[in-house]
């Protein structure tokens, strides 16, 4: 066979930069990863809060007052939603990484997600609310 013009061989299929928009699960993955940035941002905020505690009292009161503003409220709402999304998506993945067997039967995924994720989460949350309010 006469090849008149050299063709790339084999043909390399393109990998588009916006690959994560091609499938819903890719997008959920990207969102799950990005929510970690917001959770990290909140940790920095907590460190700043702790730092202000050590400052003089008026400065701390001013800081707390600033937190009631719309920007601070919006930040908290967004971070809260991100933390929820992050936690729920990871809890739902737990059974894949940590399967349990009773004899030859695999324990159902929701049971593992609840036992290792949601239940301890609920207990700690109630404990914190009780500790703060009570």
């Amino acid at each position: 066979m006469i090849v008149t013009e050299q063709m790339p061989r084999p043909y390399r299929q393109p990998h588009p930069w916006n690959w994560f928009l091609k499938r819903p699960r890719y997008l959920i993955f990207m969102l799950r990863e990005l929510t970690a940035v917001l959770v990290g941002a909140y940790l920095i905020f907590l460190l700043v809060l702790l730092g202000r505690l050590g400052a003089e009292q008026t400065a701390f009161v001013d800081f707390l007052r600033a937190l009631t503003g719309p920007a601070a409220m919006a930040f908290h709402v967004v971070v809260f939603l991100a933390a929820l999304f992050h936690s729920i998506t990871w809890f739902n993945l737990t059974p894949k990484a940590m399967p349990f067997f009773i004899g030859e039967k695999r324990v159902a995924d929701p049971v593992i997600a609840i036992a290792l994720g949601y239940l301890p989460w609920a207990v700690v949350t109630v404990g914190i609310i009780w500790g703060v309010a009570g």
Partner: protein
Amino acid sequence: MAEANITLEVFRYHPDSPDGDRGPRFQSYDVPYHDDWVVLDALNWVKDNADGSLTYRWSCRMGVCGSCGMMVNGEPKLTCAAFLKDYYPGSIRIEPLTNFPVERDLVVVMDDFMAKLKSVKPYIIRDDVNDTGDGEYRQTPAELAQYKQFSMCINCMLCYAACPVMGSEPEFVGPAALALAHRYNRDTRDRGSRERLEKMMEHEAVWGCTFVGECTEVCPKNVDPAGAIQQAKTDAAKEYFKSFFMPKGGR
């Protein structure tokens, strides 16, 4: 009843065709529609009646051999299990599996996959191979359950096409090979998990996986490669710490 047709838009690539039209390009074919036909039946119709030069792999036609994996409307599918009726009356776009180099039309180059599969030693390793006359190595149903799901892999490579890490990091060992490696690590007859884990611990092996999970979704055999890799990460981490306390050879 009037005969219904369905349109296939098929990826074509003939790098050494002497008469132009080498591609890459899409070519449309109108194919008779039957509600019991799968995409592979439609491709076979094209090959027999419209265009004998169309090239693709297939063999068993019943979801066992793993040869006929292609992208069907952007989804990695076994074409023998993708029914026309799920797409009709829309057209169907058929492409070679993504993340693989294309040899010709719908045929991908799988050499790299085969090398990766081989690199994780997906077979039972042990020094003392008994004579078959001594009887089989016995397992309890509970021991079998630990790895049976991962042993169902038919090497169809749909998971490689579904994995975005494969696209951005071609060195990644990939879902099927790692799931099969994990399958042998969880087999009580095997003694080779230590040497297997040495390969699996490398950066482009289990740690390359970011747990997108699409491999598990597209697997036609419910192997759950994503789950296998996360479990293998735990095993790899244990092995890493164990290596401080137990020098090579201990097990």
